[in-house]
């Protein structure tokens, strides 16, 4: 599969002058990209910069209007994903394409083109190859384990194995670390380095600067559909990359200043909550958040954080325990009652909870206050008042939109989230609950939202921040609670907490066993 090709030979993959236009936008504008054999090539850019479009072109999901793709120096036309896979190009998507109830081996065989014309599967041979491939890249995997029982980090390895099983030479990873703990990220990086060492070419899509600096051999930065720079990791730094990516200088670390915690606003005692399937998700949580402080909850996604915040804001019933707000028992209060008690909530899934995508921006800005004066008199709505205040919010929160009446689905992710923030922040608050407030956003929007959160804290609101991005929790929080298995296993001081220590707590809950073994034996 691999020749002794040095990095100086013909690129394994070359994309020349790729231009892709969609009505009203040029998603890719003459992009050039060269990936050499054995190279880890990072593609860095904000959301909407055109990374995904470029990779869709490579994967045959979109036809470029101009430009050509070369594999090993030869021009090719890629007609679709099956064709791309046949040519050795494989993609590991951000959202895994795995069937949880099937085993590792079954998932890997699923959709394998070489199996298409056969009736019986050669399971034994498949298992043997899977184990062998895993060993070659430094991990032991049980081909008979159900994928649903594996940790996210291991599921990702299954995705990579799937690609290798199909003899992938070029592997595209779309934001592979978004769902991983720092330890898992390190382990995946180890796997990727071995792959590169064997001559595979890797395209690593990310918007995390430090990761790109750590893993990549070369970095291509794109902005608004164009390549704005190519860098070698040892000749650049985070500030340089951020400036390239955003197009202006950005402040990467938030200056959160001193906090002045006052009285306890939110007090949760012995809270138990079930998830949608009726399983215990929150198993006895105690926490309190004071006015003027940010309490961050770190944890791998799916450890009960979503259920915890949904119970606090009234979207989910708790089965035991007590929630009190400024001394008042508010357990079981409705979302509207909480909202009227000056509690704001930025939900993790803005498309599912935070916004009605098919509605105009102005309607979304009053989604929680539409029934109150001045937006309604009795049951009659007042469009003038709604539009007037929308114009103010658009200005104040820098929502980039052609008008207040466009459907919110046409806005970028960052601007959609700014709309949620504008709606939730624009009043005096006792408690601000944020669940993944910056997930999937670009550097500029993250910076903006973080500043707004700190402003709310300084204005005396108690802030509860849940994030799967450990860096965000570390950067923003005055105190940090680590959530594992439905419990808060530790509370640390935000100024002194150590990233590795928190990462280990996230992965193990502080128990005496290593993260890797816990995942394998699951």
């Amino acid at each position: 599969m691999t020749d002794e090709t040095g990095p100086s030979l013909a690129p394994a993959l070359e994309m020349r002058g790729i231009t892709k236009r969609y009505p009203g936008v040029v998603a890719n504008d003459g992009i050039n990209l060269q990936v050499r054999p054995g190279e880890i090539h990072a593609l860095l850019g904000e959301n909407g910069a055109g990374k995904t479009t470029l990779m869709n072109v490579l994967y045959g999901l979109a036809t470029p209007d101009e430009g050509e793709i070369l594999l090993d120096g030869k021009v090719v036309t890629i007609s679709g994903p099956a064709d791309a896979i046949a040519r050795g190009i494989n993609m590991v998507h951000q959202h895994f394409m795995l069937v949880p109830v099937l085993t590792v081996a079954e998932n890997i065989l699923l959709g394998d083109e070489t199996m298409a014309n056969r009736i019986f599967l050669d399971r034994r041979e498949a298992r043997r190859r899977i184990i062998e491939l895993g060993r070659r890249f430094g991990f032991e995997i049980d081909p008979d384990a159900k994928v649903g029982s594996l940790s996210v980090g291991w599921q990702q390895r299954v995705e990579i194995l799937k690609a290798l099983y199909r003899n992938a030479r070029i592997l595209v990873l779309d934001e592979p670390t978004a769902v991983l703990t720092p330890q898992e990220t390190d382990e995946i990086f180890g796997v990727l380095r071995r792959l590169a060492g064997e001559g595979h070419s890797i395209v690593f899509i990310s918007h995390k600067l430090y990761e790109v600096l750590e893993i990549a051999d070369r970095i291509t930065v794109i902005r608004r559909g164009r390549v704005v720079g190519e860098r070698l990791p040892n000749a650049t730094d985070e500030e340089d990359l951020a400036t390239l990516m955003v197009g202006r200088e950005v402040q990467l670390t938030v200056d959160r200043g001193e906090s002045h915690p006052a009285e306890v606003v939110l007090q949760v005692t012995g809270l138990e909550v079930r998830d949608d399937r009726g399983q215990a998700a929150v198993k006895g949580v105690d926490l309190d958040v004071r006015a003027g402080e940010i309490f961050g909850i770190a944890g791998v996604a799916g450890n009960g954080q979503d259920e915890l915040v949904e119970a606090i804001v009234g979207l989910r019933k708790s089965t035991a325990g007590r929630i009190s707000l400024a001394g008042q028992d508010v357990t079981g209060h409705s979302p509207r009652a909480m909202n009227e008690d000056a509690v704001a909530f930025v939900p993790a899934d803005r498309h599912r909870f935070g916004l009605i995508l098919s509605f105009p921006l102005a309607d979304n800005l009053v989604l929680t206050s539409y029934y109150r004066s001045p937006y309604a008199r009795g049951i009659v709505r007042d469009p003038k008042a709604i539009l007037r205040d929308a114009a103010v919010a658009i200005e104040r929160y820098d929502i980039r939109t052609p008008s207040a009446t466009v459907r919110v689905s046409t806005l970028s992710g960052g601007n959609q989230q700014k709309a949620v923030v504008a709606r939730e922040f624009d009043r005096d608050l006792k408690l601000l609950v944020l669940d993944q407030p910056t997930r999937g956003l670009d550097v500029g929007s993250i910076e903006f939202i973080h500043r707004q959160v700190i402003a709310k804290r300084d204005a005396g609101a108690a802030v509860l921040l849940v994030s799967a991005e450990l860096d965000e929790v570390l950067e923003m929080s005055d105190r940090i609670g680590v959530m594992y298995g439905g419990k808060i296993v530790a509370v640390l001081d935000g100024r002194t907490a150590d990233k590795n220590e928190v990462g280990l707590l996230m992965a193990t809950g502080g128990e005496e066993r290593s993260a890797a073994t816990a995942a394998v034996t699951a």
Partner: protein
Amino acid sequence: MTGRPAPSGPARARRPFLTRAWAVLAVPIVVTFLSLLLGAVIILASELIVTGRKFDPMLWFTAYSALLQGAYGGGDAIIQTLVYTTPLVLGGLAVAFGFKAGLFNIGAQGQFLVGALGAVVVGVALADAPAPLAIVAATVAGIVAGGLWGFIPGFLKAVSGAHEVVSTIMLNYVAVQLLAALVSGPLKVPKSPSPVTYDVGNAAFPIFLGDTGHIGIILAILAAVLVWWLLFRTTWGFEIRSVGANPDAARYAGMRPKLLTVATMTFSGGLAGLAGTSVLLGVSHSMTSSFGTTVGFDSIAVALLARSNPLGVLPAALLFGSMRAGAGLMQINAGIPVELVDVLQATILLFLVASPVLRRVLRLRGVQAGITESGQTTALGVKPAD
């Protein structure tokens, strides 16, 4: 990471009026035209199958002009068309209103029948009472009865999650049997050879246009405006549309989706009940066991063609009403059975379901979200492709 960057907005916001109007109207107009075209082909094909008849290549033209003449040839014809249109407007509003809340009320037919039943019970009881009292009481009874028939599936959905499509279909059968049992039982005129109720007497809708134009015509137009106002100008309508577009976000926003589901189904049933009332008090004045046309089902087609817009229901209902009104003359002049109208209506529905394809052919983009928002295509299990 989003799939692809969103199209920029300003171009869309500044499109001229005609372009926007075309974007909204193109699909209904093209769909209707295509159905008429297919109808013509069917007419010609039928000539080949039916023997003993000279082949007439222009028979489709004879048929359609008779249809048009039957619907609009003179004042009486036009009034008759309006009378046919009236229950379709009200029924179409009932279904469209449900669509806006994400509910597919197939039970308009049952609510139509039960509404008419309510109107006939009270109408007969007050047949000799002063007309204004009798009319208002019988109309309210019809609305309430239809509303009750809509409340049942709404309530079942809220408490047990029973899908309204299933429960409303079942309730349609119950309504048919209920009507038959009552009309041949307690409501039957004693000693009458056939099952028929007494006349509603003073409760009948007054005629204000020609010989048949009853005040139900005005009620239907007022209802369309009222429903539009409710949906787009009140907080209640905002809640209903929110629940229809995204129930999770509605709950997050402090609305109560279950309560709204019950309220919407009840209101929708009330509109369908008013449709039945308008036929009973405005046209038949009494009820036989065979009362009830296919108005309830035609209403679904009306709502779909109107793209769930309450004001769009008016022209959509007029189209179907015209076809019903003109069908008789078509049969007389061209020998084409009235059932052709059912065929036309069915092909309109089929073309509407395929409208994502049409949209691509017509290169229309802007109104797609409108379709999903109304829930109509999702209700039929078809999502518009983008």
